[in-house]
């Protein structure tokens, strides 16, 4: 399948270009800071970094409105930041503080934000897909013109829930956009070792569902493709599957010794770093200057220092509250 080519002419205005770049850079610097905090044992448990995949989260998020719903995975820091959840409450969540987006109950893998319709944060691979289908079903039954974005990885494509969910969404023509961030590895197992059919987008044909493959390292390509898919879904044409071909530069998680990839492969993909690519493209189009970049980095530095300070100084939830929020009142 052909990937969407990047235009030679600036297809984007300066303001939007700088916005996309700063969004990607925020994710990169946040993830680097999270890794540092993990090594300093301020963050515990599992930490799955989005480094290398920034273009997919940022590019795709541009196609959704505040009214739409977002369902993601345990590797969801990028989507959460791109959705507008503050780095402060995300850092506090990973520090286990009461001020975290999930009040310290979820940690890195379970970010939730009701106001921003960010429905998690799932640690079971494939676990979010049926939920996305249900959110879309609710919209269809209540005649609401909203769309549900469902992010998942190539690993999820092996789970039964992927097949069940795509079939169900296509059968009922539900307004879901299935966004597969194919980073070529299901934890330590390469795509060609877990899929008989490695062209993920082709699986959509089995469910009579539209699909495209996109260069996941090109933020503008991701943005354009996602907007096209979302427009189609909003028109009532049924669900869409987008396969973003991307790569994660770090290991699966902070616990992963990364023994299953070669340094050469990682280096090859580093040459296509989405942030570096976009920066050079913008410079070529005369949309980015050195001072733009240093200003952006300085602001992000301040923002992330503040996020860490906020997380450090935030209180823990009192242990007396341990049994709360297991059952309770209607929330919405």
């Amino acid at each position, binding site marked *: 399948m052909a990937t969407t080519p990047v235009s030679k002419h600036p297809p984007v205005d300066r303001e939007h270009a700088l916005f996309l770049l700063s969004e990607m850079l925020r994710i990169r610097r946040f993830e680097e800071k999270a890794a540092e905090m993990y090594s300093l044992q301020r963050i515990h448990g599992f930490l799955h970094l989005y480094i290398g995949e920034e273009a997919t989260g940022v590019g795709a998020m541009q196609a959704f409105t505040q009214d739409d*719903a977002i369902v993601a995975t345990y590797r969801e820091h990028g989507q959460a930041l791109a959705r507008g959840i503050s780095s402060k409450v995300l850092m506090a969540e990973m520090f286990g503080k009461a001020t*975290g*987006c*999930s*009040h*310290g*109950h*979820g940690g890195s893998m*379970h970010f*939730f*934000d*009701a106001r921003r319709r960010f*429905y*998690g*944060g*799932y*640690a*079971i691979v494939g*676990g979010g*897909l*049926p*939920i*996305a*289908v*249900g*959110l*879309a*079903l*609710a*919209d269809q*039954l*209540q005649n609401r013109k909203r769309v*549900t974005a469902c992010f998942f990885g190539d690993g999820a494509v092996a789970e*039964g*829930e992927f097949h*069940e*969910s795509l*079939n*169900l969404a296509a*059968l009922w023509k539900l307004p879901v956009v299935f966004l597969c961030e194919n980073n070529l590895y299901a934890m330590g197992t390469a795509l060609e070792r877990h899929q008989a059919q490695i062209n993920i987008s082709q699986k959509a044909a089995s469910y009579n569902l539209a699909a495209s493959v996109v260069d996941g390292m090109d933020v503008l390509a991701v943005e354009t493709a996602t907007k096209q898919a979302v427009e189609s879904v909003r028109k009532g044409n049924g669900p869409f599957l987008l396969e973003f071909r991307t790569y994660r530069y770090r290991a699966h998680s902070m616990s992963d010794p990364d023994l299953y990839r070669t340094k050469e492969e990682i280096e090859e993909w580093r040459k296509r770093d989405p942030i570096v690519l976009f920066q050079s493209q913008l410079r070529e189009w005369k949309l980015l200057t050195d001072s733009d970049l240093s200003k952006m980095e300085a602001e992000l530095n301040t923002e992330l220092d503040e996020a860490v300070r906020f997380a450090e100084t935030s209180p823990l939830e009192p242990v007396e509250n341990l049994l*709360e*929020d*297991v*059952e*309770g*009142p*209607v*929330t*919405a």
Partner: protein
Amino acid sequence: MTKMTYREAVRAAIRKALRSDPRVFLMGEDVGRYGGAFAVSHGLLAEFGPERIRDTPLSESAFVGAGIGAALGGLRPIVEIMTVNFSLLAMDQILNNAATLRHMSGGQFNVPLVVRVATGGGRQMAAQHSHSLEGWYAHIPGIKVLTPATVPDAYGMLLAALQEPDPVFIFEHATLYPLDGEVDETAGHFDIGGAAVRRVGQDLTLITYGGTLGKTIQAAEHLAKAGIEAEVIDMRLLRPLDIATIVNSVTKTHRAVIVDEAWRTGSFAAEISAQIMEKAFDDLDAPVQRVCSAEVPMPYAKHLETAALPKVEEIVSAAQGMIAHHG
């Protein structure tokens, strides 16, 4: 009061809910055109249409998860999982999502989902179609587990469940569907309530739920002929467990037998036994007894199946043994 069967009572409750609340819909395998595997939803498709009586593919994980998503999205789905045996395919969605989303999100989201599940053995459906796993569900914080054993409860508990902000699992023992009874369809409001004393007695307490209530009452009647008056408690809910009603009874009778169709090891009966010991040890004149299914996959042959399941004679003999025991 209207005479109806347990099956008709569930149907009447679904109908009442769909008529009074546009957010409610029924979703599951063969609930529509087939009329329901146990004929519970017979006729409902014609009245409410295919959007609200929604046939699903054989995709338990997806349609239970979709029920969760639909509940998050403002609807009040009733998901029908044909039997508890197939619910295993949806356990990830049930435990990791339905039961857990509220707490994991820091209280931001509630999941007002009702799941109805047929359960139990005794109809020669063999090993993969005869499980009693409601005890597994009762293990999970964040959900309620209801086990209606009577016709009024088959009606009222579903309507009460639809008012709950958190997931409710209703287990309908498959042998109960033809049970005759009466329902007051004019009643306005239903509380889930707690355990019910179905027979008053002072000599010992028989505790059960769901499909084994009938056998337990029969056992009480046999015991009465021998001059032993058994109190029969129908738990009605496994989670939250109404231990107070149980303890009140045991405080009076000093002896308890729990009847549970699940396999004995790790059965919910074991949980009740532990709680009775914790809360009423000094009132007991004998160890708490359990009458459960034998440790064997449910056999097909009738005589073997009968041997595997709890029997009236077993309940009677456990009770008589306790009366003879001097505490």
